[in-house]
């Protein structure tokens, strides 16, 4: 077992250095699907954040009561409950965005990030730490989504948050808001990260994750 992590590490780890999307490559489905506008990215990020935080706290609270053999089913049940609640609230408060996000709100249930965090962290650590970890990972997910959303909306619609930025003469690069654009944008970001990693030269591989976190859940 690696050295115990500090509270600050638990909080900040997921935001950039071990970003769930850009580094661990989890939760790709919503990242590519809903980032065609910044507003959608924001809504999806917030919904996932809510589900992640709520379920991490709940899972950590009941971890002693839930027998080991049924833990995955219990976690999935907890996550599905939070997702249903988020879905209903979004539909009631922002129906237009709810329609734009469509089935992907419900698909938060199978977002590998959430189940991954419960299995690797929340089920083994106290409630406070699990909450910090969830905030960090949820924040990191939001960062990735906003990065993608900004890039795609700017090039694909010439606007940000619906506000046109380039004037009437701008011919939008429509493919950016279509499916290929999602793949190419994320690919581009990863290429950029790969390039900067290459520039920094070979680094000693220091893992700051507690044991079990590194498993890539498909």
């Amino acid at each position, binding site marked *: 077992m690696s050295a115990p992590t500090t509270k600050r590490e638990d909080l900040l780890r997921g935001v950039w250095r071990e970003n769930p999307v850009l580094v661990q490559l989890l939760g790709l489905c919503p990242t590519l699907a809903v980032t065609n506008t910044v507003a959608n990215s924001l809504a999806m990020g917030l919904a996932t954040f809510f589900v992640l935080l709520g379920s991490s706290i709940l899972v950590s609270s009941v971890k002693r009561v839930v*027998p080991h053999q049924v833990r*995955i089913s219990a976690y999935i049940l*907890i996550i599905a409950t939070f997702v249903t609640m988020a879905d209903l609230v979004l*539909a009631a408060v922002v129906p237009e965005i709810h329609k734009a996000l469509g089935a992907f709100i419900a698909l938060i249930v199978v977002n590998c990030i959430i189940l991954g965090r419960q299995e690797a962290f929340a089920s083994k650590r106290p409630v406070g730490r699990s909450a910090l970890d969830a905030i960090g990972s949820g924040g990191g997910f939001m960062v990735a989504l906003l990065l993608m959303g900004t890039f795609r909306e700017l090039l*694909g619609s010439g606007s940000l948050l619906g506000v046109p930025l380039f004037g009437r003469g701008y011919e939008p690069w*429509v493919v950016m808001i279509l499916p290929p654009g999602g793949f190419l944008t994320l690919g581009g970001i990863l290429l950029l990260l790969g390039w900067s990693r290459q520039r920094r030269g070979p680094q000693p591989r220091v893992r700051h994750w507690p044991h079990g976190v590194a498993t890539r859940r498909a």
Partner: protein
Amino acid sequence: MTTEAPGARDVPSWRLLATLGVAGAVAGLLVVLVQGWAEPRIESHRAAVLQGAIMNVLGEPARYDTLYVTDAGLSRRPPPGIDAGSADRVYLGYDAAGHPVGYAITAAEPGFQDVIRLIFGYEPGSGEVLGMQVLENKETPGLGNKIEKDASFVAEFDGARAPLTGVKAGAGAGDPGEVDMITGATISSRAVIAIINHRLDRLEPLFRSYVAEGAP
């Protein structure tokens, strides 16, 4: 999915089931509570959108009635055995004096990319389409989805005589049934026209046999 943790104690089955049962019950309770809060808001929004669309395509009628499409014709009651929420229906609008102004009809069929859902107004007496509004589409942004966003295309449907024919912009002969299609989005435009024509083919006989109240 079941991985054995080292040293897992032998937990009695009733405990496993009880845990899941309790979890399920709590989950269900939470969802029902939030649903109770959210449902009225969702319903009122849905009703407002529908009402807005009907007003739009019928030219602001004073009120409208819901009529269900049954095998025997139009009726005020849904066909037996079918849930009222999912039954096929049209909306008959009346002006302030109580005269029927036309039917608001929803229709959906595959377009270029995926299904297009729209609502249009129709006056059986004159055979004219009163207006059209696209409710849902997944056509190509900037091209096909102009069927929803392009005001001049939507305006083409005001007063067009059914059955509609699509013509390239500027190439028409001035026929009352002609609709100018969007350049670069002819397939999506043609789909919209086809959706309206097909729906009218099916409903026209029902309109003829239905005597609306207040009709002269």
